[in-house]
């Protein structure tokens, strides 16, 4: 079961098929992984900030990237009833004046991401978020499982 590695960069959005594995590296950003268990097609968005507020760079922001990702999957013949989501990331600096806007980015990213998924009607099955760890996440499209590596520790999320 060798999956072809596809790197998803900061503020990128990619979809793939069952033989692929999507990887991204997260700090305060959030990785949103959506999988259609029927079609075995999935996609990942790596968002930097919660709200686009008019920006045309839709991949950067949770409120524009998530609908765009869902649309891409729908175009591939996926259906919402078989789609589910997993999210990871949204870390914050260990020591930070939380009052500054920058100090809250991780938290805001998680919050808005969940909100947008809910509005879109996509079930959120698991999350590996918050704290101060960086995360390398691998999203396996053969079965939709997510592997999160954080601070040398690996965690797998199989539910789809």
């Amino acid at each position, binding site marked *: 079961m060798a999956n072809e590695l596809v790197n998803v*960069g*900061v*503020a*990128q959005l990619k979809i793939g098929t069952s033989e692929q594995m999507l990887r*991204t*590296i*997260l*700090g*305060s*950003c959030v990785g949103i992984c959506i999988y259609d268990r029927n079609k075995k097609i999935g996609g990942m968005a790596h968002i*930097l*900030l919660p709200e686009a507020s008019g920006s045309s760079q839709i991949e*950067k922001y949770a409120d524009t990237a998530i609908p765009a990702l869902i649309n891409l999957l729908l175009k591939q013949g996926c259906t919402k009833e078989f789609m589910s989501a997993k999210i990871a*990331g949204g*870390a*914050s*600096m*260990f*020591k*930070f*004046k939380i009052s*500054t*806007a*920058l*100090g809250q*980015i*991780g938290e805001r990213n998680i919050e808005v991401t969940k909100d947008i998924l809910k509005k879109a009607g996509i079930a959120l099955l698991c999350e590996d978020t918050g*704290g*101060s*760890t*960086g995360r*390398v996440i691998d999203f396996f499209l053969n079965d939709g499982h997510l592997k999160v*590596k*954080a*601070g*040398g520790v690996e965690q797998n999320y199989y539910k789809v």
Partner: protein
Amino acid sequence: MQEQIKQRLENIISTMTQLPSIPDVVSRIINMVNDPNVDFKAVAEEIAKDQSLTTNILKLCNSAYFSKGKEIVSVDRAIVTLGLKEIKDIVVLVTCRNVLDKPILGYDLAAGEMWTHNLTVAILAKKMAMDIKRKDLADIVFTGGIIHDVGKTVLALYVANTFKDIMKVTQEKAVTFIDAEKDVMGFNHQDIGLKILEKWKFPDSLKAVVAYHHNPENSPKEFYKAVSIVHVANIITLMAGVGIGGDGLYHALNPDAVKETGISDADLEKYYSIVPEIVKQAKQI
């Protein structure tokens, strides 16, 4: 084991032989360019002595990030078009790449990840310096950005064996990763970086950036602004996940350093939001 590691690192630092090397020409060029009475012909001659350095410099002068449009085919032309300071930045880029683009195992960074991180910090820091109208600091923060984490190249091997202990210290004592490195190994990557720059005979301004990029509060006054700019650029780059390793975000953003740069909260977020574009520029170098 921790005592053994401390001993080993002390040994590495005092003998210096196991610290990475770069060609002597680099410190000669940096010091020439920092001399207000520099003769640009002399710099050009110094570079021309090394054929592969010359070739690599010209390649970079014509890369998307540095190019001023017209193709540059000689070092003389490069100096005239880009200026001595920019040529010095390019010399450091070209010669340090071999040292910095390797995998940094203990920190969980794959080959090239730290290099991209360093370039991103360098480009972002330079942009900040220009935006706050401190063009005079642009080259220090750029070069400093490129080499700020050089100490990791040596420390990584030891971090690989002590990572769990370091993390435990961050939790139990509620200190940053950099403080925990020192707690466990006797040295952090700033200390080792400083020793490397001593070996390389780099100027005090760059030593300050390397030695205090996580602790700008300890920087000598005269370099405080430059150190603060690199400090802020580094934190923003890490938050965006670029070159984030096993140490994650177990670091601190120093509010006084932010104040020193004069960058507003809103602008901090703006810099964070343009990291993807900066990474794109970094990858073209």
